[in-house]
């Protein structure tokens, strides 16, 4: 395990395999980040993993929805444990493609979507890059 440039020996890089293992949990929340009109923008979403891609839904009239298909996004999933001061964070980099709802996988229809609404868009992010780091528990 290699150290990050921060010099913190408790901070280790995760392998892509470890990253995907963490992304695969049930009903997890991710934060989607993109370059908004006035700096970076973030929204939390429920997501699902299917066919090596991440899927989630957004509202048509949200800032990301109005930006249209093909935007570069990050999808971040993390976990923090206050008791041990440990945690991990995984970031996927990719392009957000807006997909017709009928072409979305069943897993997205089964997802406990948050937020939900009648005017939602299905989004698929095909990863170009996966990275993660873990803060090990304090001894």
């Amino acid at each position, binding site marked *: 395990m290699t150290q990050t*440039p921060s010099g*913190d020996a408790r901070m280790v890089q995760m392998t892509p395999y470890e990253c995907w293992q963490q992304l695969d949990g049930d009903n997890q929340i991710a*934060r989607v*980040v993109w370059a908004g009109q006035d700096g*970076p923008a973030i929204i939390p979403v429920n997501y699902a993993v299917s066919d090596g891609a991440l899927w989630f839904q957004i509202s048509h009239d949200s800032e990301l929805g109005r930006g249209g298909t093909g935007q570069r996004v*990050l999808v971040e999933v993390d976990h923090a444990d206050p008791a041990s001061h440990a945690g991990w964070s995984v970031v996927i980099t990719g392009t957000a493609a807006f997909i017709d709802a009928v072409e979305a996988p069943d897993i997205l229809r089964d997802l406990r979507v948050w*937020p939900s609404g009648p005017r939602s868009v299905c989004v698929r992010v095909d990863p170009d890059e996966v990275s993660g780091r873990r803060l090990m528990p304090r001894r």
Partner: protein
Amino acid sequence: MMIELNEAESWELASSVPVGRIAWMSGSGPVIVPVNFVVHERRILLQTSAYSMLVREADESQVAFEVDEIDSVTRSGWSVLLRGTAHVRFHDTLGDDLPAVETWADGTRRMVLVIEVSEVTGRRVGAP
């Protein structure tokens, strides 16, 4: 069910958790990192080292900060999004009344990143 939170509620919830996520624009696109933070006088404070990417890339730029607490089983919880400008300062120039950030990661952190917040939005979701 989704309820918009007002500013006071959003700040109160944001103050209740130890970890948030800061996003900024780097030369190659947006970056997001989980960090420890404190809320002080409607500003977000983080402690960082002088050599961090955060100091090099986010100083005097627009940033976004997100905190949430969502129970994946009951689908209930809240999220707060804050946007504003980041300013990097030496810790000892900010006065004695500054609350300390309890930082989980090790290492020396002499710099404080202050987010002057210009926009706060929050929402609560839960089973009806």
